């Protein structure tokens, strides 16, 4: 089951960005129970303050949850039994480069849009097993895989 929750957001002012090598796209803010970040072959326990990179998979066991803030000041979280990949992320207002693609394959997620949702909402996309979601400056949630109706 995947559930996606999307919320509206108001954001001011472009951030004076600084680039890091192996560019950080966000940071872990909240964790509870079994929560991990998988990067390539390695799976690490998620801890607040941990940097997030493009390609990272956020995962939780039963009873776990994990919340991150991305560089455009949007926030994203997953509930128990979830798996979500941050497939791409670009946020460079001075170069007009904006992009966010996340794919949830199981569990639940919530998203509160930030500057990308305000400046270039068409560049953000969320993929679930059944649908694609585009944002227009929002907070939304997704629950993957509820049993089909008869």
């Amino acid at each position: 089951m995947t559930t996606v929750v999307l919320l509206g957001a108001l954001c001011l002012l472009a951030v004076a960005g600084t680039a890091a090598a192996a560019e950080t796209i966000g940071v872990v803010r909240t964790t509870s129970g079994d929560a991990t970040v998988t990067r390539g072959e390695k799976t690490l326990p998620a801890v607040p303050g941990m940097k997030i990179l493009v390609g990272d998979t956020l995962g939780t066991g039963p009873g776990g949850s994990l919340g991150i803030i991305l560089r455009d000041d949007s926030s994203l979280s997953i509930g128990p039994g979830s798996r979500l990949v941050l497939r791409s992320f670009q946020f460079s207002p001075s170069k007009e480069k904006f992009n966010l693609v996340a794919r949830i394959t199981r569990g639940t997620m919530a998203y509160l849009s930030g500057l990308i949702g305000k400046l270039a909402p068409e560049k953000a996309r969320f993929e679930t097993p059944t649908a694609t979601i585009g944002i227009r400056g929002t907070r939304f949630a997704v629950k993957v895989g509820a049993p089909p109706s008869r």
Partner: protein
Amino acid sequence: MQSKPPPPASRDIIVLLPDDQGKTGAIVVSSAGVERRLDRPGETVMVESGSPPGIPTVVPGPEARAIAGPALAALPKPPARFILYFKHDSVELTEESRAILKNVLVTIRERAPVDVSVVGHTDTVGKKGYNYALSLKRAKAVASILLGKGIDPSVLDITSHGKDNPLVPTGDQVSEPRNRRVEITVR
């Protein structure tokens, strides 16, 4: 006659919620070549694999929030931003801004642990170098008030943008009180 069981079907639920200020945006849900737009608070749609999105329905607030309850509880709050103003060519805060600083402290305590950025700015009157130094002094003045109230120095990131990042765009050498500011962001 099929001997294999059909592949497991998936049905996803997507719900639009207002933010903490009560503002609702919009989302577009696409599947099987059909797009559905949701723009009402609590508006919810179900999608079965291979099918277009179902007809959206509005779900009452508490029920809508419960659809992904733990995920929603884990969703970090957006950064809190504050703008403090100064008297002309000075590192002295205006009266109103002194009051805002109290809100900053409350927010820092409520959200701990946090990262706090303190960025100084000036208007465009004067030279770049002078304004860079002045805006840094402003940022440091604000930071020292925060430190005096017990905020841990390691959470503060103090920088300055001089005259390069006006809140209100003006030509050069234009006195603009709204640009003479320190911006505090609490993450």
